[in-house]
């Protein structure tokens, strides 16, 4: 079993892309910052609003601040050494590949299903060797054991793949954080895979 210092030394070498800085993205970024990832590239076009505070990694005094700027500030408070590249931009099928060109692993953290399909099609076609970790189904509460990670080659789908958000099925911190933590945990597994051969080497 490696020590946390050994784990951090390896995590430090890698860049992770995060598309979206909402409930999934902000919390994936928080978890990966805590375990010492070298660089994060984060894109989102939104500002922090009151309704985000039930699950997203922002604070009341950051209302109306651009999410990527507020997130960078919060992450640097955890780890001043992390390299954070932020883009206050609405992602689309034209800008997403060049923006995340240098990542070792890509995290999908959009809220809209159409965008999830778009990034999966793009990345799996144009960058088939870059592992892509998607969040899919995390609304409501309870049903912790329904949350899982489905591996389709180097495409990982985290969540229950069932609960769609809606007015009477809101996303809330506990299940959104389970999903975000599963995504961050999958990123760790992918990056550390084969690093501790003959020691402790759990699969994603």
């Amino acid at each position: 079993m490696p020590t946390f210092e050994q784990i951090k030394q390896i995590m430090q070498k890698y860049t992770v892309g995060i598309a979206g800085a909402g409930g999934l993205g902000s919390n994936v970024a928080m978890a990966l910052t805590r375990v010492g990832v070298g660089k994060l590239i984060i894109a989102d076009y939104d500002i922090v609003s009151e309704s985000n505070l039930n699950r997203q990694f922002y604070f009341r005094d950051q209302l109306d601040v651009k999410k990527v700027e507020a997130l960078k500030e919060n992450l640097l408070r955890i780890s001043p050494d992390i390299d954070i590249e932020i883009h206050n931009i609405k992602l689309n099928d034209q800008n997403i590949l060049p923006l995340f060109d240098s990542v070792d692993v890509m995290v999908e953290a959009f809220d809209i299903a159409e965008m999830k399909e778009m990034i999966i099609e793009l990345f799996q076609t144009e960058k088939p060797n870059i592992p892509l970790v998607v969040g899919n189904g995390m609304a409501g509460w309870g049903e912790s054991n329904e949350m899982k990670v489905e591996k389709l080659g180097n495409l990982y789908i985290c969540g229950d793949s069932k609960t769609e958000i809606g007015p009477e099925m809101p996303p809330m911190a506990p299940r959104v954080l389970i999903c975000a933590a599963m995504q961050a945990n999958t990123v760790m597994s992918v990056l550390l895979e084969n690093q501790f051969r003959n020691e402790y080497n759990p699969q994603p």
Partner: protein
Amino acid sequence: MNIILNHNHEKIEVGSEVITVSDLLKIKNFTFRMLVVKINDIVVKRDEYSTATIKDGDNVQVIHLISGG
């Protein structure tokens, strides 16, 4: 035709050697709006559903994509 669909063995009763992804979605009643489809680990784009073919022995995965994040 025998395929593996979402980890399960499936016998698809068709007269032809191959079927398209669109055929499979219809046969298996996948009515979801947003999907990810993989045949033998290769992603099939939405605009290829009517041309991409599935043959005997293929490993097919279809996952429903839903909003939330």
